């Protein structure tokens, strides 16, 4: 990989770690969505967010390998 994305972009990959490993952020029942307590939909929501954030980094890579 000859031109890596700027180092700052890689820091985006730490967001899911922060959002999910600091449990006090989301250890609640409310607000609920479609019957899902907060604890559950918050964590499920991190799946697409993580893919999106990773895609932001991916976009800035050269794909010649």
């Amino acid at each position, binding site marked *: 990989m000859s031109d890596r994305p700027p180092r700052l972009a*890689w820091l985006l*990959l*730490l967001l*899911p*770690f922060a959002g*999910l*490993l*600091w*449990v*006090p952020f989301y*250890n*609640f*029942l409310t607000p*609920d969505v*479609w*019957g*899902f*307590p907060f*604890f*559950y939909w918050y*964590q*499920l929501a*991190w*799946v*697409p967010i*993580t*893919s999106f*954030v*990773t*895609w932001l*980094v*991916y976009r800035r*890579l050269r*794909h010649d*390998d």
Partner: protein
Amino acid sequence: MTTEVDGTALAIFIACFILVTVMGLMAARWKRAGSMAKLDEWGLGGRQFGTWITWFLVGGDFYTAYTVIAVPALVYAVGAYGFFALPYTIIVYPFVFAVMPLLWHVAKKNGYVTAADVVHGRYGSRALELAVATTGVLATMPYIALQLIGMAAVFKALGLHGELPLLTAFIVLAVYDYSSGLRGPALIAFVKDTMIYIAVFAAIALIPGRLGGYAAVFHAADAAFQAKGAGGLVLAQSQMIPYATLALGSALAAFMYPHTLTGVFASASANTIRKNALLLPAYTIMLGLLALLGYMAHAAGLKLSDPNDVVPALFNALFPSWFAGFAFAAIAIGALVPAAVMSIGAANLFTRNFWKAYVNPDVTPAGEARVAKLTSLAVKIGALLATIYLPTQFALYLQLLGGLWILQTFPALVFGLFVDWFTAPALFLGWAAGFLSGTWMAWSDGLKPLHTIGFGGTKVSLYVGLVALAINVVVAVVVNLAVKSQVAQPQPSR
């Protein structure tokens, strides 16, 4: 739960099983360029799997049949705490994205097949190579046994008893694995994952409707936990750090296993792996929703003595028997894919890092493939005998230790990709310290995943594997500083 044999369910089950057996055997011819008598071809499918094949293969091999049984079982038994599998299987992907393409490059450039190959190539140390290889094999064996246990849970739900069904499934697995190598599970993974997706999405779409909606499902689970006086829909204060450390430790360990690394090394390019880090989270959505089957079992009023029966019992209770047969086939076939890849990964390790390193350094490529095929057979027979003759709890304990052990190979495998500072003796002693202290802590805690340490006045419980990894890294750094300072000292002149 019912133990009557249901003809419809059993017929569907057998038909699906025959289909994948034929596919597994035909896979030997699939996308075949060169001779099968090479370890690259048999054990890595020729390093040519593109984005979609890798997606099915790694997905089928990381989210195992045992996961499908055990995650809802844990959620049924303890509630929110069982969900640690969700953050675990989310944060693993940014890690895979950042690290695994680098590892793939090293392996591709040098023709490496195993993690221990990479470590030997990087540090030139036979001791470190042996440590990584032995850890890989030790950690994989109980994992294969767990797949057979997952399969046994399904046979039980179909009303099949005794060892014969397991033995049959095992022979199917052994035969296609022997002849097709990694192509077998790669091709079967398409069928298996499609079936699992259908079964899980049918369950999460239809079951809550029968039980009064998701709000009612959560409510029923909450009531069950309150009646029991244990568990709950959110974590207790004391469970938060265990939850986070289990998720982190499991995520760091996940791609150190021989079976997941085999999927990485078999990819056609580094970009295949990056794309998969973006796409594999689809399986995590499925896992998260699947976990809720544990709550649905409470809402359906199932009272189970063995939580591992949650998924089979729920399908038996709420779906027509043809669909239950289909879902059970999905789970049983789901056990074949990871079991096959695991035994291939262990066989690759044995061939490259024991046989070629110590027994026959001049082994030909054809000889390597032959040794690997026979080893994969031996590994599977070991797992089968363990499943039949040892108590299930024993495999679970070994699986817990296996996760702790494999995590100790992390510094040796990953650090060298980013920094050029560590030396082989430091990493070896770090591995030994982590391995031994971790095993000792887990043993003295009664083989529980959590270890309690005191910080001043407060006591904190953490995932024991992560504590051992911290010891591992500290020892590696300290020893490395000592080694470096010795080298840097001027030699006394005579």
